[in-house]
């Protein structure tokens, strides 16, 4: 997928002025966090499970090569095939090759961020293979030709009015006077339109929440059941997943599943948690005749052993963005690429380079809410700060900012000079602001005073007053 992350400030500006989006974000902020709290409130073991989750994933990452090889061996033993892709281009070609061999005309798709990352849909379409998104949110944005704005709820930025508008525009075979007032009717319409597509698809492509080394199994998690119709009905099931999705055993998957749905939507379990291993067996009445797993690197191997390795523990629950006040103000599209919110602020520069995503790790107050809700205890603010360090070293920060900070550091290391300027600033600004108590306008502080008053100093610095007081006491 093409990135517009460099245009973050403009994107954010547009997002702040977008009434539909703001209304949708209000609903999101009211919903997800409370549901998560309710779910984990019922599970006293939740904190321990977070720690356990971190340990499992750290263990996997330390031994990722071994586990990947074992995964491959077991997929093959079950009659499936594993394909390795270094880059998005390789992954796309592998998938296209499989589709062509199978004579695929249409391909149903479960929700997968990896497919977004490699730009699969546009590529397949250009090559004459029609991809059909089946997750309701993904289906809606596919019709609107928009990218997803949230990794769990891709259409969260839309109001139901906008969905209705799109359905009316695209589903022209249905009676124009039909009532689409309620979400129920929109869901029912999508169900009908997509059922036909499920049944006719030649190939089904899904992602994987987990890849289990012990059994050569891929795991998908949905509430709709679209992933299951995608992977059961067609001739072949293709899984596209990045390297770090590996977990060792079925029990490890169970442990991580306890964290996933609760953190994502506040459910104890998503409705459909499906474990797929190889193609249908000789005696099976249904299931795909072929099973392929395309393993994508695209930068993950480089993150291992780096100060960003912890990012590979992410299980894509979305809790960070659900709780982030910045995401809650601007939504997902502003982040400009596949992965929004706090996890995107770290993963996007990791995968496309910090030069192409300069703003993302900077557009954070480091409030720490993301890290506090992350089920895998990923230190997101710390890694954002590491990207800021990289930017500083590469001189990617704006020159004015660098100058300002250098000046500040200069003063901070020279107390007499610092106190001298402080005393002046306190007196001058204190005097100028005395009448109103605040500044409505302050030169050089326009970014602040355009929308907020700037409180005036009380008139003398604390250290000045303190030392005067101490001098008087000693006298």
């Amino acid at each position, binding site marked *: 997928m093409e990135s517009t992350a460099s245009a973050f400030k403009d994107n954010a500006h547009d997002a702040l002025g977008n009434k539909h989006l703001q209304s949708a974000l209000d609903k999101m902020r009211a*919903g997800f966090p409370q549901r998560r709290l309710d779910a984990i409130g019922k599970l*006293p*073991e939740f904190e321990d499970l977070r720690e356990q989750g971190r340990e*499992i994933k750290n263990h996997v990452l330390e031994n*990722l*090569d*071994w586990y*990947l*090889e*074992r995964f491959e061996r*077991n997929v093959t*033993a079950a009659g499936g095939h594993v394909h*390795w892709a*270094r880059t998005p281009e*390789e992954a796309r070609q592998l998938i296209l090759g499989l589709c062509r061999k199978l004579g695929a005309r249409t391909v149903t798709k479960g929700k997968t961020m990896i497919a977004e990352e490699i730009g699969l849909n546009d590529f397949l379409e250009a090559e004459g293979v029609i991809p059909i998104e*089946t997750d*309701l949110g993904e289906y*809606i944005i596919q019709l609107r030709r928009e990218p997803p704005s949230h990794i769990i*709820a891709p259409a*969260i930025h*839309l*109001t*139901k009015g906008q969905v209705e508008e799109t359905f009316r525009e695209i589903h022209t075979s249905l009676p124009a006077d039909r009532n689409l007032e309620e*979400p129920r009717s929109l*869901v029912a319409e*999508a*169900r009908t339109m997509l*059922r036909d597509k499920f049944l006719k698809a030649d190939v089904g492509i899904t992602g994987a929440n987990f890849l289990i080394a*012990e*059994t*050569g199994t891929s795991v998908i998690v949905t*509430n*709709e*059941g679209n992933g*299951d*119709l995608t*992977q*059961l009905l067609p001739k072949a099931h293709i899984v596209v997943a990045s390297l770090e999705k590996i977990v*060792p*055993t079925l*029990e490890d998957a169970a442990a991580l599943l306890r964290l996933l749905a609760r953190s994502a939507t506040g*459910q*104890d*379990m998503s*409705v*459909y*948690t*499906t*474990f797929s*291993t*190889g193609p*249908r067996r000789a*005696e099976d*009445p*249904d*299931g795909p005749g072929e099973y392929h797993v395309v*393993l994508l690197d695209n930068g993950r*191997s480089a993150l*291992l*052993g780096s100060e960003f390795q912890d990012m590979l523990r992410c299980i894509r629950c979305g809790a960070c963005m659900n709780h982030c006040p910045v995401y809650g103000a601007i939504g997902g599209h502003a982040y400009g690429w596949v992965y929004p919110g706090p996890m995107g602020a770290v993963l996007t520069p990791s995968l496309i380079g910090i030069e192409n995503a300069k703003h993302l790790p900077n557009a954070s107050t480091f409030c720490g809410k993301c890290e506090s809700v992350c089920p895998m205890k990923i230190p997101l603010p710390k890694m954002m700060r590491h990207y800021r360090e990289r930017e500083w070293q590469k001189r990617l920060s704006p020159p004015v900012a660098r100058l300002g900070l250098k000046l500040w550091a200069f003063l901070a290391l020279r107390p007499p000079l610092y106190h001298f300027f402080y005393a002046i600033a306190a007196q001058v600004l204190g005097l100028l602001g005395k009448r109103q108590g605040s500044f409505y306008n302050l030169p050089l502080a326009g970014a602040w005073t355009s929308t907020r008053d700037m409180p005036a100093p009380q008139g003398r610095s604390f250290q000045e007053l303190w030392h005067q007081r101490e001098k008087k006491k000693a006298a």
Partner: protein
Amino acid sequence: MSAARDEILGKIRGSLGRGPLTGDSAAKLEARLANHPVGIIPRRSEGLDRKGLTKLFEDQAIEIATTVERVSSLADVPKAVADYLARFNLPAEFAAAPDPLVDKVPWGERPLLKLKRGKPSPTDAVGLSVGFCAIAETGTLMMLSGPDNPSTLNFLPDDHIVILPASRVVGPMEAAWRRLRESRGGTAVGPTMPRTVNFITGPSRTGDIEQKLEMGAHGPRRQHILIVEDESLA
């Protein structure tokens, strides 16, 4: 593409600052896989007897909009199914799994019920399967693919009814995996692992439109479970 494979594995090892794992390190990982250790199990799904497990399962299932009915034995199933279909004004016919337990149900007691054995066609409105086991912790059904229970029965029909002997309810998911391995002679790897294992927790739903929860997105609109309490039923 073995060039890609080698390069990726090489990059991983390079980043981790070592070569391929061998000897003791590899043996430890082998052992971990072979032992598949169980981690933290929530207290609420531990130490329950059969009655406790059934109750917990029922409570959890109802909370996520599954409907549950307890029957004493397989002899009660025909009436329960007939009543269910009548309640929702559905025709008295359904696609039923080839599972041997379905054979043991005295369908003859409700001669008007029409069973079609095998996998469902796209127009079958109701499907009936047998659960391999169920997880009380979350009110979840565990369904295995195979000739006994076609996986498409879990997804294509609008209504999905599952016969679940109470003896098959376990506490946590880990116990379900143990059951699966035991049923496959100790290990479920390679072809002995079912092609598809579905964990089903309620009817299909979505919140994708303004966060309002709607049932029946793509899978069944309604999920019904008949818990058969007959102690002799395995």
